[in-house]
């Protein structure tokens, strides 16, 4: 009877709030998804973060600092949303560092050049926005409120990233070669970004019914290509997939099927930067321990935040 009321509320388009009754599966799936999104934000800050100290000129330096700061801020917003479901930030951080909980696979690749950080800023954020805009119409109140603020700030990331890639593509020969090489490197991970097509994805069915996941992986990939492949080609940049084209009859993009074996290999820890990313986060936590121990007041009771 509670389940019917819960499902009816979702079907009416109303939000579920932290104090409401919810099926254990709903709580578990939401924590898993929001937690992974939070991890992706703070791990995602690392490859781009390495370019803050080398950004060329004040405009890029300040913008990249603001962008990476936003990403750490989005991580904070998302951990907070997940905390309203009962998992503490300490547990989430520990699960990240021990590899128990995943983050977006794309950050297991290195940002080799300045153009890599530009392509990430544009296209990885573009992919994230496709995902976030869909989820912002979901059913859980605190997550939607967090996503509203995140999407507002992400619009700056997208514009900055596109502006950056455009400057490189329309600049000198060296700039153009650098961004073409970065685009070629990042296209395969971008095709992995939305994950395997739904038939292979075990959670999608349940998450859709409860408006936890709002669109299928394939639908989001198609939307991403629709919005951004034309903009990439418009700059005269090439993509490393000869079969990539839009089928005007079906309205769908056709492409070479991504190598999902590599995707599984990398997501399970065997990518170029997996170890390095977690090592950096572990160091940040360990270097900060003396600080937290010194100012933590033991009698502070841990209470689930409200909204």
């Amino acid at each position, binding site marked *: 009877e509670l389940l019917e009321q819960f499902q009816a509320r979702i079907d009416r388009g109303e939000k579920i709030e932290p104090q409401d009754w919810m099926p254990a599966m709903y709580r578990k799936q939401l924590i898993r998804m929001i937690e992974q999104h939070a991890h992706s934000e703070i791990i995602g800050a690392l490859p781009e973060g390495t370019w803050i100290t080398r950004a060329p000129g004040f405009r890029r330096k300040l913008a990249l600092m603001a962008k990476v700061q936003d990403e750490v801020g989005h991580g904070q917003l998302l*951990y907070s949303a997940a905390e309203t479901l009962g998992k503490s930030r300490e547990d989430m951080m520990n699960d990240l560092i021990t590899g128990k909980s995943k983050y977006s696979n794309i950050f297991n690749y290195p940002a080799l050049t300045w153009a890599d950080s530009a392509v990430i800023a544009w296209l990885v954020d573009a992919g994230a926005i496709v995902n976030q805009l869909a989820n912002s119409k979901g059913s859980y109140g605190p997550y939607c409120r967090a996503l509203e603020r995140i999407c507002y700030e992400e619009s700056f990331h997208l514009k900055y990233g596109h502006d950056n890639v455009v400057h490189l593509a329309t600049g000198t020969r060296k700039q153009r070669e650098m961004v073409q090489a970065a685009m070629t490197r990042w296209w395969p991970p971008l095709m992995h970004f939305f994950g395997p097509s739904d038939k292979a994805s075990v959670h999608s069915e349940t998450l859709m019914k409860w408006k936890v996941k709002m669109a299928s992986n394939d639908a989001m990939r198609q939307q991403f290509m629709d919005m951004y492949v034309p903009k990439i080609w418009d700059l005269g940049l090439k993509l490393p997939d000869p079969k990539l084209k839009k089928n005007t009859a079906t309205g769908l993009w056709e492409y070479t099927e991504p190598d999902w074996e590599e995707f599984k290999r990398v997501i399970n820890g065997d990518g170029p930067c997996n170890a390095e990313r977690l090592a950096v986060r572990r160091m940040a936590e360990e270097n900060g321990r003396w600080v937290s121990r010194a100012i933590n007041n033991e009698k502070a009771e841990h209470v689930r935040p409200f909204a």
Partner: protein
Amino acid sequence: MNSIEALKELLYKIADDQLIIGHRNSEWTGLGPILEEDIAFSSMAQDKIGQSEHIYNLLHQLGEADADTVAFTRNANQFHCSQIAELPIGGYDFSLIRHFLYDFAEYLRFEALKTSNYQPLAQLAKKFFGEIKYHTMHANTWVYQLGHGNEESNGRMQESLNYSWNYALGMFENGPAEEVLIADGIFIGEEALKKKWLEVIIPLLEKSNLTIPAESTWKPVVGGRTGTHTEHLQPLLSEMTEVYTIDPSADW
């Protein structure tokens, strides 16, 4: 030294300080001890680099090159920052103590500059005063709570204070521009600034169970204002300009 040269000397000193310490503090982005602190510390680093750009723009109006060129094409010996700004970030104890010592000096410097006869600088000092006030609030709250935290944190902060003290005194290095700046009513002078600085920070440090080294041991680390720097500055600049110098004619 004529008035314009003295004014340029003052502007270079302030802009280089803010740029280099902003750059150093940005190295904590993504690595802060706590997420909220990571956000706050990188936000303050942004404030400082933004302030340095505005001051380089004043120099541009006085005939120097534009902000990007001035910041991204000079070598270490052409920089006028004090040596405390260029030191590596070290542990969070050192970075917080530097933040405390440096930002109270900057707070008092900008407070004095609010009434400078050089109007563009006075306006900037007023515009940025809120930002710098927040930086001192953040620095003082941290020094107080770590000074009181436990034995380990008090010990670490005291050790960092001892290590940083003479570098901090170097911020007030006297230079040829002093008399002209004071005579022209542009700035109160480094000596006066240091006196105000000591009056403000010593009570705060004592309240935080921290003590400054005995005056007899003070040996200000000078030279930065005239281009003499530690071995850390050139590598910092090489890293900072790595992309910019790939193609100096390019528009990034």
